[in-house]
């Protein structure tokens, strides 16, 4: 099978896949190397950062507000690490295309890799922090279960699709409306409070229970937490998360593909 590339260059499928992999990996490697370059703590930051947030929430909601949730630090850690990966990717994506204007203006390449590499970078950091979460679990007297074998890959895939879809929309949208860059940090914060991460989904009033099915990220957040707290997974929410992620990925990719050819004019 041949893929007719831009510039009328005809590449075999194998060459195309090899190239696509290399492009994604080299960009990922760049992101990975650059992130903590010249910091004394380096990779430790990707654990420390969400941990510090968790401690702030612990102080505000446990010490001050006296929230009634057992093992609240573990509870927070189970959600905050995931959220950091998600929100970092979404916020950083606003500059994925704009920050590479000189490339976009001159060469035609699979530009979605610019976004994908950022998303994969955060996902990798999240995966690398799972052992830390496990250590905290063990500290609370819990251990990973057999469910992890399928649930971890499933949740990671769903998370990747959702994050990539949203990041593509933000990266593309920001080319045409630069305000998005400012707006998105606010929207992500709002989204954080609308998602059961610092509170339990049961605490949401009965009349608003449906929101967890409408919030594309709620199913992922809730199930990560259940997994990390040794609680049974919520299958209905796993389903809704899967459907949402697939739909948002498809929409994001479609928007990107539709407007891709205009990038050089707007960047």
């Amino acid at each position, binding site marked *: 099978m041949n893929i007719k590339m831009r510039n009328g260059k005809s590449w075999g499928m194998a060459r195309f896949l090899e190239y696509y992999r290399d492009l994604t990996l080299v960009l990922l490697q760049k992101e990975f190397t650059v992130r903590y370059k010249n910091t004394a703590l380096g990779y430790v930051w990707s654990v420390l950062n969400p941990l510090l947030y968790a401690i702030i929430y612990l102080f505000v909601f446990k010490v001050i507000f006296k929230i009634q949730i057992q093992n609240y630090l573990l509870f927070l850690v189970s959600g905050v690490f995931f959220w950091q990966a998600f929100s970092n990717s979404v916020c950083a994506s606003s500059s994925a295309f704009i920050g590479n204007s*000189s490339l976009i203006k001159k060469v035609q390449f699979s530009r979605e890799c610019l976004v994908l590499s950022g998303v994969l970078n955060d996902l990798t950091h999240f995966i690398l922090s799972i052992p830390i979460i496990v250590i905290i679990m063990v500290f609370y007297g819990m251990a990973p279960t057999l469910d992890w074998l399928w649930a971890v890959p499933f949740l990671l895939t769903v998370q990747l699709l959702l994050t990539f879809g949203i990041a593509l929309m933000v990266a593309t949208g920001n080319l045409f409306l630069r305000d998005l860059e400012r707006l998105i940090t606010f929207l992500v914060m709002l989204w954080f409070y609308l998602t059961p991460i610092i509170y339990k989904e049961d605490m949401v009033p009965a009349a608003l229970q449906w929101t967890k099915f409408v919030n594309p990220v709620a199913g992922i957040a809730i199930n990560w937490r259940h997994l990390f707290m040794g609680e049974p997974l919520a299958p209905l929410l796993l389903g809704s998360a899967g459907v949402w992620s697939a739909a948002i990925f498809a929409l994001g990719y479609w928007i990107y593909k539709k407007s891709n050819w205009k990038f050089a004019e707007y960047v």
Partner: protein
Amino acid sequence: MSDTIAIRFNQVTKYYRRNTSLSFGLKHLMLNLPKHMEHMAQTKRFCALKDVSFEVRRGESIGLIGRNGSGKSTTLGLIANVLRPNEGSVKTFGRISSLLELGAGFHPELSGAENIFLNGILLGMTRRQVKERFREIVEFSELENFLEQPIRTYSSGMIARLGFSVAVHLDPEILLLDEVLTVGDMAFAEKCFKRIKSFREKGVTIMFVSHSPEMVTSFCDRAIWLNGGTVARIGDAKTVCDEYQKTMVG
């Protein structure tokens, strides 16, 4: 017939939207909504290329001259397929490589070696291909002793060397050069020039954009003179450049 043609522009017209209302930002849009609606309705457009037709034969070196804003970059963008024409058609036959601006496709924090891979892959090589050519690239750049340094420590001349060294180790059928030979020191510029000449001997089609008619005359077979988005002259490089220079002086 397409066997002998590398690039074909057929009555190509390209507009840019002038000051797209969205690029003003939301605030401006909200405050001036009625005006914007009206504005968008009549869509003020700026015509960058108007009814441009030409053909470039395979293996030909063709110069593109003209003043700022005459449509040279738009032409290159259309050939590189990063822009689409509003009317007419652009056809290219063969693998295209563009030389990038200074430092584009590099990351300042990565080492010279890492940047060779990054840049090479961004320009269309697989990792394997970069690896195969790595030693040649390094030798060409004469930067052996700086490969492990992050390129933020490089001078702009060194970055230009590295960028050029990667680019000339691509394997293009059509090469787009945009005013690039002016960077780096004389000796290196000479080396690059030689390398490009060897591309030419290998039958690579070269489109060379320049402000300098001298460069175009010495290097190209034919030239296209763009003026205000239309082809003012096309033909033998020397003839076209001479005429272009006359209007510049007069």
